[in-house]
C-alpha cells in the first residue's frame, strides 16, 4: 500500500493477506498519530513512491544499477528504521539529521572547552622580592626648570589700587578689588569688632558648633540683597563650585559647559562624573546646536538630568555671558542653569545685583547661582544661593561644606558690611564703569594685542594677536612683559598662568582688573606703559 505526500507510509514488501489486513489497517491508523516502531523488521520507507521493477522484461545492464539502488534503499531503510514515523514540526526526520545533530553536539562541546593554557604558577616570595627590588619609581616631581624659579612680587601693604612693592609705590591692576573696598574703614571696623568678640577661626565644621550667628546673618543678608529664598556660605571661593556641582550632578547626567570655564568649575565637572559636552566659548549658536544635538540624537536624554554651566564674567577672557539667550535656550530644551557670578556680583547691574539684573532676567530663572566673595566684596569665602530646597540639600551633601571648617567669623562680618556699603553707595559702580570705559579708550589702538573682553566687564583682557605656536613660549613672553611693567613703570598687571591640569585652551594674554579706586592718571599710565612694552616686545 502506498500513501503519497507527507503521510506516513508503512510500506514494505508485504503481502496483504487476509490475515494481516486488519492488523495493517490498524497500524496505518495509528501511524498518523503516534510514533511507533515499525512492525516490520524491514522498517518502513519514507519515499513517495517506490517502484520495484520486477519485470523480467528489464534489461540485464540495468540490473546492476537496480541492485545497487536496492542495496542503498535497504541501507536507508535500515537507518531510517528508528525514526520511520517521526515528524517534528512538519519535517520528516531522516537519518542524516541524527548525524548532523551529533556533529552539532561535538562542535558545541569543543567550543565550550577552555583553550589550553599552561597552569599559572603563583609567584614565589623570592620572585616577588626580586621584582620589588628591580622596580624603580619615577621621582616624585619632574626636574625643576628655570621658568619654575620665578618669584611673584611681595606686597608690603594692602592690595588696594595703590600698593607698595620693594619699598616703591606701585599701581595695582592685579587685585579683583572692583569697588575699591580693600582698606575701607567700615569693613575694617566690623572685622576688628568681630575679631575681638570671636577670635580668628571658628574651630569646627558647620555641623559641630562651627556655625556662628555671624554666618547665619551673612546668609540672610545675601539672600535679601539678591532676593533669593536662601543662601549657603562656603569657606573658600574656589571650593564653592567644586562642591556644588558634584552635589547635584551625578554619574549619567549631562552637563553642557563653556570651554572657557575656570579651573574650579572644571574640577567640579570632573568630580561629578557626568557626561560633559563643551560648547564654543560664549557662542550662543554653538550652545544651541549642542543642545539640539543632545536632545535629538540621544532619545534617553529626556529621562536624564541636564545642566548648563557658565560663568557670568569669564575669568579667562573677560567676556560676559548673554544670560537672556541662555535662559531662552534653557526653557526651550528644558535644562537647568548653574551660573558662577564671582566676577559679576557687586559689579554688573544698576545696583550691583549681578548678571540677572544686568540682562533684566528674573533671578528665579537661574537654578543655582554661586559666587566667590574674594572679588568685589573684598573678603574671602564663597556662597551659593537659590531655592530653599537646593540650599538645604547642600547642607548635608556638599562635601566642601560638611567636611571643612567654617568661614572665619570676621570674614563673614566683612561680607555683611561690604554688601551694606554697596547698597548705600551706588556711585562706586558708576565710577568703576567710567574707569573701564576710559581704559578701553586708552588701549584700543595697542599694537600686537587686542581687547578680547566685553566693554562692560571689569576684567580687561588683552590677548596676543600672534601666538608663537607654543603656549609655554607665550606665557614666558607675557611674564616678561608683566615683570618689566613692574620694574620700569611700577605697574602690577596679571599675565596668564596655566597649570598643566587646566584644560582651558583660550588664548593667553594680559589681564587688567579695574577698580573704582583707580584714578584717571593711573589708567593713562597703564595704557601708555602697555602700549610701549607691546611695541618693544611683540613686534
Amino acid at each position, binding site marked *: 500500500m502506498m500513501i503519497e505526500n507527507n503521510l506516513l507510509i508503512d510500506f514494505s514488501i508485504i503481502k496483504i493477506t487476509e490475515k494481516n489486513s486488519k492488523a495493517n489497517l490498524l497500524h496505518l491508523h495509528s501511524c498518523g498519530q503516534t510514533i511507533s516502531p515499525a512492525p516490520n523488521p524491514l522498517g518502513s520507507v519514507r519515499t513517495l513512491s517506490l517502484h520495484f521493477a520486477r519485470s523480467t522484461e528489464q534489461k540485464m545492464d540495468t540490473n546492476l544499477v537496480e541492485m545497487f539502488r536496492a542495496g542503498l534503499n535497504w541501507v536507508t531503510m535500515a537507518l531510517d528504521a528508528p525514526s520511520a514515523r517521526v515528524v517534528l514540526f512538519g519535517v520528516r526526520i531522516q537519518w542524516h539529521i541524527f548525524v548532523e545533530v551529533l556533529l552539532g553536539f561535538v562542535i558545541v562541546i569543543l567550543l565550550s572547552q577552555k583553550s589550553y593554557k599552561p597552569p599559572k604558577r603563583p609567584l614565589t616570595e623570592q620572585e*616577588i622580592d626580586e621584582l620589588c627590588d628591580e622596580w624603580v619609581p619615577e621621582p616624585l616631581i619632574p626636574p625643576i626648570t628655570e621658568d619654575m624659579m620665578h618669584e611673584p612680587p611681595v*606686597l608690603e601693604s594692602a592690595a588696594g589700587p595703590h600698593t607698595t612693592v620693594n619699598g616703591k609705590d606701585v599701581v595695582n591692576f592685579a587685585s*579683583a*578689588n572692583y569697588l575699591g573696598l580693600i582698606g575701607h574703614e567700615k569693613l575694617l571696623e566690623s572685622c576688628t569688632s568681630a*575679631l575681638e568678640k570671636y*577670635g580668628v577661626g571658628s574651630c569646627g565644621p558647620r555641623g559641630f558648633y562651627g556655625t556662628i550667628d555671624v554666618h*547665619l546673618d551673612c546668609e540672610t543678608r545675601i539672600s535679601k540683597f539678591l532676593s533669593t529664598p536662601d543662601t549657603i556660605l562656603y569657606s573658600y571661593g574656589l571650593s564653592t563650585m567644586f562642591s556644588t556641582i558634584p552635589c547635584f550632578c551625578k554619574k549619567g547626567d549631562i552637563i553642557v559647559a563653556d570651554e572657557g570655564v575656570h579651573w574650579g568649575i572644571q574640577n567640579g565637572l570632573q568630580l561629578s562624573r557626568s557626561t560633559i559636552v563643551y560648547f564654543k566659548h560664549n557662542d550662543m549658536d554653538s550652545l544651541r546646536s549642542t543642545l539640539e544635538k543632545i536632545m535629538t540624537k540621544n532619545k534617553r536624554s529626556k529621562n536624564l538630568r541636564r545642566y548648563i554651566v557658565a560663568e557670568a564674567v569669564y575669568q579667562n577672557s573677560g567676556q560676559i555671558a548673554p544670560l537672556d539667550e541662555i535662559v531662552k535656550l534653557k526653557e526651550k530644551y528644558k535644562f537647568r542653569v548653574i551660573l558662577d557670578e564671582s566676577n559679576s556680583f557687586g559689579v554688573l547691574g544698576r545696583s550691583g545685583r549681578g548678571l540677572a539684573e544686568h540682562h533684566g532676567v528674573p533671578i528665579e530663572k537661574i537654578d543655582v547661582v554661586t559666587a566667590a566673595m*574674594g572679588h568685589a566684596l573684598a573678603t574671602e569665602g564663597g556662597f551659593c544661593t537659590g531655592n530653599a530646597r537646593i540650599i538645604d540639600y547642600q547642607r548635608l551633601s556638599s562635601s566642601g561644606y560638611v567636611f571643612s571648617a567654617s568661614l572665619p567669623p570676621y570674614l563673614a562680618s566683612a561680607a555683611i558690611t561690604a554688601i551694606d556699603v554697596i547698597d548705600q553707595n551706588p556711585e562706586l559702580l558708576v565710577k568703576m564703569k567710567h574707569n573701564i570705559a576710559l581704559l578701553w579708550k586708552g588701549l584700543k589702538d595697542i599694537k600686537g594685542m587686542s581687547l578680547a573682553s566685553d566693554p562692560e566687564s571689569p576684567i580687561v583682557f588683552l590677548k596676543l594677536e600672534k601666538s608663537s605656536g607654543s603656549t609655554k613660549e607665550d606665557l614666558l613672553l607675557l611674564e616678561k612683559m608683566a615683570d618689566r611693567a613692574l620694574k620700569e613703570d611700577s605697574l602690577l598687571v596679571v599675565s596668564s598662568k596655566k597649570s598643566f591640569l587646566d584644560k582651558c585652551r583660550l588664548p593667553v594674554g594680559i589681564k587688567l582688573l579695574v577698580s573704582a579706586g583707580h584714578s584717571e592718571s593711573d589708567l593713562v599710565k597703564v595704557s601708555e606703559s602697555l602700549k610701549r612694552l607691546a611695541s618693544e616686545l611683540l613686534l
Partner: protein
Amino acid sequence: MKDCFARPIASAPDAWFDMVERDWNDGEKVRDRTTKRRRCLNLGSYNYLGFGSFDEYCTPRVIESLKKFSASTCSSRVDAGTTSVHVELEECVAKYVRKHSAIVFGMGYATNSFIIPVLIGKGGLIISDSLNHSSIINGARGSGANIRIFQHNTPSHLERILREEIAERQTKTHKPWKKIIVIVEGIYSMEGEICKLPEIVSICKKYKAYVYLDEAHSIGAIGNTGRGVCELLGVNTADVDIMMGTFSKSFASCGGYIAGSKELIQYLKHHCPAHLYATSISTPSAQQIISAIRVILGEDGSNRGAQKLARIRENSNYFRSELRNMGFKGMLARKCKFLYQNESHLLPHKRANSKRNMKQVAIAVVGFPATPLMLGRARICISASHSKQDLIKALEVISKVGDLTGIKYFPAAPKKQEAEKDTIKLV
C-alpha cells in the same frame, strides 16, 4: 534628630560658649533662632590649645595686620596675593615642622584635593588608609590614579598590598607603576587613633613608595613641642616626603599647608591650581598662625605654649581614665586629645546629646556617613582652656546622662579604685 547638628553659637568657640536656642516650628524644617542664649561647656570644638578666642598675644597682632593689609588681597598668590606676612608664614611653618620649605593655602580641605592631582596622575597608584578623610578621597579620585585601600592602621596589610601591586603589575601588564604614594593621617578624626607611623615609614622606604602624612588634627597638639606625630613617635621628618596639615584646629585660624623639600615646594608653587587661581589666605589669619606658633615655641617670651601643651595632655589623660572607670566604652587612644565613646546606634547618643545640652554640656554626636551606619558615637574634644572644675562637671553630667540613656556598656570600676583618680598620670 536635626536639633543635634548645626547648633549656632553666639560667641567665640572657647571653653564655655553661648549657644543659641532654636525654636522648632512644629516639625517644619525651618528652625527659628531665638534671642535666648545658654552658656554651655564646649566639648565639641577643635580648640585644642585654647587659641579660639581673644588671646593676649595673638589678637592684637592680628588686628594690627588687619589694619595694615585689610581682610583680603582679592588676588591669587602669583598675581598680587603674596604679602610679606605670607612669606613669613611659610618660613615659620617650614621651620616648625622641620622641613625645608612650605606652601600655604586658604582652606585645609582644598589643600588635599588640589595637591594630590598635581603629584600623581594616571599610571600611578595611591594606597590610602580605609578611614581617610573625605578631602583625601576627593583628591585621589580627581587625580586619575589607581586607588587601593589598606586596612585601617595595619602596616602588615599595607606591606602585602605593596608587594602584590608591584609584582603583579610588572608581570601582568609589563608596564610598572610610575610611582606609589601611601596616604595616612596623623590622628584619625573619627577614631581618635594615632597612626603607626614608624612601621609604615619603614615599609614605604623598603618598597620605595612615597609617604604623604596628613596632620590635620595632630599638628600643634601632640608631641613635646606640639610638632605632631613625627615628634611623638620619633620619626625623622626627612623620611616623610610630603607633610600636610591644617590650621583650623590647634592654631584656631583657617587654611592648610604642605611642607617638603625645596624642589617639591617650588614645583607645587608653579603648578598647583590653588596657588595659581584661588585667592590667597586672608592676611590676618596668616598672622594668627604665625603668632600661635611663636607662643607654642615660647618665642613670645613666656612659657604659655609649654603650659598649654602640658595642660592638654593632663586634661585628656584625666578625662579618659575617668570615663573608663565609669564604664563607658571608648575608642580611647593613648596620648590623644580627643576621645570617642560608645560605638552604637546613633539614637541613644542623640537622646544623650539633648539631655546633656539641657545640663549645659555641648558634645558632638557623629553618625553616618562620617562613621559606619551602626557605629554612631559621641566625640569629645578636650582643650587646653578647660580647667579641672570644667572637666569634673562634664564628667558628672556625662555619667548621669549615661545612666539615663543606658550607654554605659561596661561595669564601673569598684569604688576603692576611685581614690586613685586624684593622682594625675603625666604620660
